């Protein structure tokens, strides 16, 4: 990463670890064959892809035959939701999701809502949790799919997936979870969770960008999203991205091996940052669940100031963070997630997401705290809201 940047946006993306890149390199060069070809260059790659599939399956507690490679978390979310909705359309046309999903889920649901499906968006409580009772009440005989993310990308809240999945199952619906933020950060075991479909994305756990996977429980039928060649057992076309597949498998394997120590480290950094911010800056608020959250996620609102300005000033201090999801920046509206947990618009606008990761140290947190104190002060001095709140 950049020499002096303090990177606090691991939830947006991560670099590819050196050992992961190293594992990928041969597949760009000598071992470049098409995994569908029958000669050695192809067969060897088929074997490498199969081994990677097995590694990913092992990390997720799945069977290799249940893992399908995609080009991103977004593609996997699209495939899972459109694919299940369409494959089960004769059974019903009601879908359930939550109000705080990633756009890769929400916008798919919106699209389906325009094509003859009905979508219920479950509310969340002030901590960002979906209530199992609320899901139970929303289930209908024509509900075919429930999609609720495992961990939120903005506020880090972790949902009670196994409970929610059981309710969906009891109601005859499939259950999909977007585990893009969870995988590599907390334990993800498809059997424990009891889910039918689960999405992961390589670049969130120090793997490469442009590769993801969808877990599809044996027996679950999906309409195909990318038609064409017979790759991925005829269910997802396109010449296999062998380096990407190898890289994602290596990265997930490493992450799974180090899950505990990684989590402890991130938790310590987060708690230090949280304690520092709350003790040194007034009018701040923690967003998301205080404890049931991703270890590396810290989301704070700083009243009277606006998030983008905060980000820009942090950037000038070589600190990279995010205000809401990086994926939704460029929009004028504040984060739908922060609104869904009940923040007023003006507070939502002034939120900052710090997502800690591998390269961070306690010293980074010290720098962060000093910078935040200075910048928040400066922006509040400039703010007509702070002025009037002081009157």
């Amino acid at each position, binding site marked *: 990463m950049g020499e002096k940047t303090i990177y606090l946006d691991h939830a947006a993306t991560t670099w590819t670890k050196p050992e992961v890149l190293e594992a990928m390199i041969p597949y760009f060069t000598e071992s470049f064959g098409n995994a569908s070809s029958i000669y050695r260059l192809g067969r060897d790659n088929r074997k490498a892809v199969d081994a990677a599939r097995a590694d990913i399956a092992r990390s997720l507690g799945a069977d290799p035959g249940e893992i399908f490679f995609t080009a991103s978390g977004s593609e996997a979310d699209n495939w899972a939701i459109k694919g299940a909705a369409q494959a089960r359309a004769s059974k019903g046309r009601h879908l359930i999701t939550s109000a705080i999903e990633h756009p890769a889920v929400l916008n798919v649901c919106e699209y389906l809502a325009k094509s003859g499906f009905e979508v219920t968006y479950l509310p969340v409580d002030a901590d960002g949790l979906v209530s199992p009772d609320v899901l139970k009440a929303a289930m209908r005989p024509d509900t075919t799919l429930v999609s609720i993310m495992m961990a939120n990308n903005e506020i880090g809240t972790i949902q009670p997936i196994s409970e929610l999945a059981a309710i969906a199952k009891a109601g005859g619906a499939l259950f999909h979870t977007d585990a893009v933020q969870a995988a590599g950060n907390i334990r993800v075991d498809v059997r424990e969770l009891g889910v039918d479909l689960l999405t992961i994305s390589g670049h969130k756990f120090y793997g490469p960008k442009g590769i993801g996977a969808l877990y599809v429980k044996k027996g679950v039928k999906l309409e195909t999203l990318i038609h064409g060649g017979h790759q991925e057992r005829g269910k997802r076309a396109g010449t296999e991205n062998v380096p990407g597949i190898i890289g994602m498998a290596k990265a997930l394997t490493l992450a799974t091996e180090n899950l505990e120590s990684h989590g402890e480290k991130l938790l310590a950094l987060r708690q230090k940052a949280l304690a520092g911010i709350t003790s040194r800056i007034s009018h701040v608020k923690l967003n998301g669940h205080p404890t049931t959250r991703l270890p590396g996620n810290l989301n704070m609102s700083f009243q009277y100031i*606006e998030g983008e300005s905060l980000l*820009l000033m942090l950037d000038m201090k070589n600190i990279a963070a995010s205000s809401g999801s990086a994926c939704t920046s460029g929009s004028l509206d504040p984060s739908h997630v922060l609104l869904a947990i009940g923040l007023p618009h003006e507070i939502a606008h002034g939120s900052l997401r710090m997502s800690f990761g591998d390269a961070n140290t306690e010293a980074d947190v010290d720098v962060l705290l000093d910078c935040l104190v200075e910048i928040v002060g400066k922006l509040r001095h400039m703010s*007509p809201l702070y002025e009037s709140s002081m009157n």
Partner: protein
Amino acid sequence: MYSEKVMDHFTNPRNVGDIEAADGVGQVGNAKCGDIMKIYLKIENGIILDAKFKTFGCGAAVATSSMATELIIGKTIEEAQKITNKAVMEALDGLPTAKVHCSVLAEEAIAAALLDYRKKNGLATEEEEGCNGCCGSCGSHDLHMHHGLDEENEE
């Protein structure tokens, strides 16, 4: 995404603050939309002697506020009233499409402060109406018509 000029005015905003017993004060935008601009004017003999601002908003909001105050200081009221969002944008070497509304806000903040001045001095006509505080009134849906933006050209 921002020009150097914008970043300069964001990093070192000119004329931050307020003016005690200002001759005109205008506030536009609202916190709901993420942008509030408040402009204070000191006016003598029809000339804007000083301008200050306070802004809650994104980098572009701060920069347009800063630039707007720069542009009107020393100008007559009539000259200041003719300063459009386009002029502010041009002075900043442009703004990203998604941020054009900030320059509109700056134009309206000036207008609101001048209206306040005229009201205080009994010069305002009845019909005059400033920003209603809702971004919708100056932002998003009207933008395309008023400012000739082409959604397709974005980015």
